């Protein structure tokens, strides 16, 4: 699978990354190398193999429906520089 410049641009759109113009060819080459390496997977015979999502054959533990969290807003919001009246502020979303 060859990756193109427009593929990279699309990926950057999805993952909200910016690449400088001069970075793009470098990433393109590196991605091409990486994808070539990954391609080796295709030669593995995975007929009738179930994909493994977890190393352990475990099931999800369930938690009791009890509220234990209390309000720590002021502490948590210390890590953001753009907070006003307890809201997080972002550039205006246009819908």
């Amino acid at each position: 699978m060859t990756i193109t410049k427009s593929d990279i641009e699309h990926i950057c759109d999805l993952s909200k990354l910016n690449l400088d113009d001069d970075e793009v060819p470098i990433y393109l080459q590196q991605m091409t190398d990486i994808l070539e390496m990954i391609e080796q997977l295709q030669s593995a015979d995975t007929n009738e193999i179930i994909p493994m999502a977890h190393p352990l054959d475990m099931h999800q533990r369930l938690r009791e429906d009890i509220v234990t969290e209390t309000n720590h807003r002021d502490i948590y919001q210390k890590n953001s520089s753009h907070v006003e009246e307890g809201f997080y502020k972002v550039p205006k979303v246009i819908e």
Partner: protein
Amino acid sequence: MERFTVKAIQNMLSEKQISATELFDLYRSRIADYDQSLNAFITSDIQPNAAYMTDDQDQESPIDFALTGIPYAAKDIFCTQGIKTTCGSKMLENFIPPYDATVVRRLKRQGAVLLGKTNMDEFAMGSSSETSYFGSVHNPWDIERTPGGSSGGSAAAVAAGLTPIALGTDTGGSIRQPAAFTGITGLKPTYGRCSRYGMVAFASSLDQAGILALSAEDTAIFLESMAGFDPLDSTSVEESVPQYSQYLEENIKGKIIGLPKEFFDGSLGSAYEALIAESINSYKKLGIVFKEISLPNIGYSVPTYYVVAPAECSSNLARYDGVRFGYRSQNIEDLDEFYRTNRQIGFGQEVKRRIITGTYVLSAGYYDAYYLKAQKVRQLINQDFARAFESVDIILGPTTQTAAFKLGEKIDDPVSMYMNDMYTISANLAGLPAISHPIGFVENLPYGLQLIAPHFKELDLLSLTHQYQKVTDWHQAVPRLLQSSEGND
């Protein structure tokens, strides 16, 4: 300059040869004197009080001070309450978590004292600790070389005697490979053995908290306190935690170690092969029996990992958008531009590369061919191990292809860098515990050997390594950096 083991420190403290404060100051001044040449630490000005700050959610009072006064360092990927946690990234340069990672909280409860936060590859992505925003880490054995990664800072700090022991994380070999490059012992426990809560996620199904130490014994002492079920982590396992340090002398005679033929296909350099052969002999003298086995799909480890890990990380890193924490550009009015600029400036190249790779392999049209395929191949690898463990107790192999490479050597060639992980990755894919311990030197650079065990058989790894370390002294060799230092402590 002497490198004190945790065991030795416990004796020194209990015999009142030194106080906990004196000990702390000792390491603090070593860091001040030697870390410039290593850059192993990102934060090292922690006050001991800070380490004892009470967590208002932690209701239990300490019941057993197993680690009272023992200083340790933590890879800067572990959230430490009130103490900057950067993950080696500009994105979190000023991030101060309001909570401790569970493993940190447990060590704190046992009286261990946090010395500092160690440098690392950015967001744990790398095998050389060169991708850190805070500069590369240097190997105390040769400062022009890498200590390995991504837990390079922890490894270098332990090897250089700047901390007796350190926490690291291992997703594809990030504890074991640096341990091998710096001549120390590094353990990656079974997936689910130690809690991942508060450990910044890179690849959730592969990440595990672990230990870099001067000996298996020290590793065992810390593992006892760190490991165990955590209700805050759905992937943590309700498996009881043995008192590892009490069983290191268990009888290992007659244990069978498997040698995968795929690991010994002649591609290793002869000097390295010789070291491995020598250590096999040492193990034989301890009564271990060896057997050839096959892990037929092991060659797919690297491509499998480089699909799964980036896929998970591309999603795990989506939360770094500058809104609630993290790097945030000012004066941007468009939301899309806001996100992109924050992430462009906040993330380094390797992180971006992995996000791009991960996004690509999950994207429409490619999911089946890449991600789904990789998860199936992962199952194949898991099955190979399960089959092998039916006839052997432990599997042995190299940790790395070579000793530490030079800084700058591989940083522009990602695939070549990725191939460094070829021996270590498979244990992460199968969730198996694995340890690396030093077995000698090639051209004055340390080299390590890897043991892999079935799930939750950390004790086997530790007892074998411990008994090997009783009859060898590779793990006691001190880096040149310290040998040439003058200094009385």
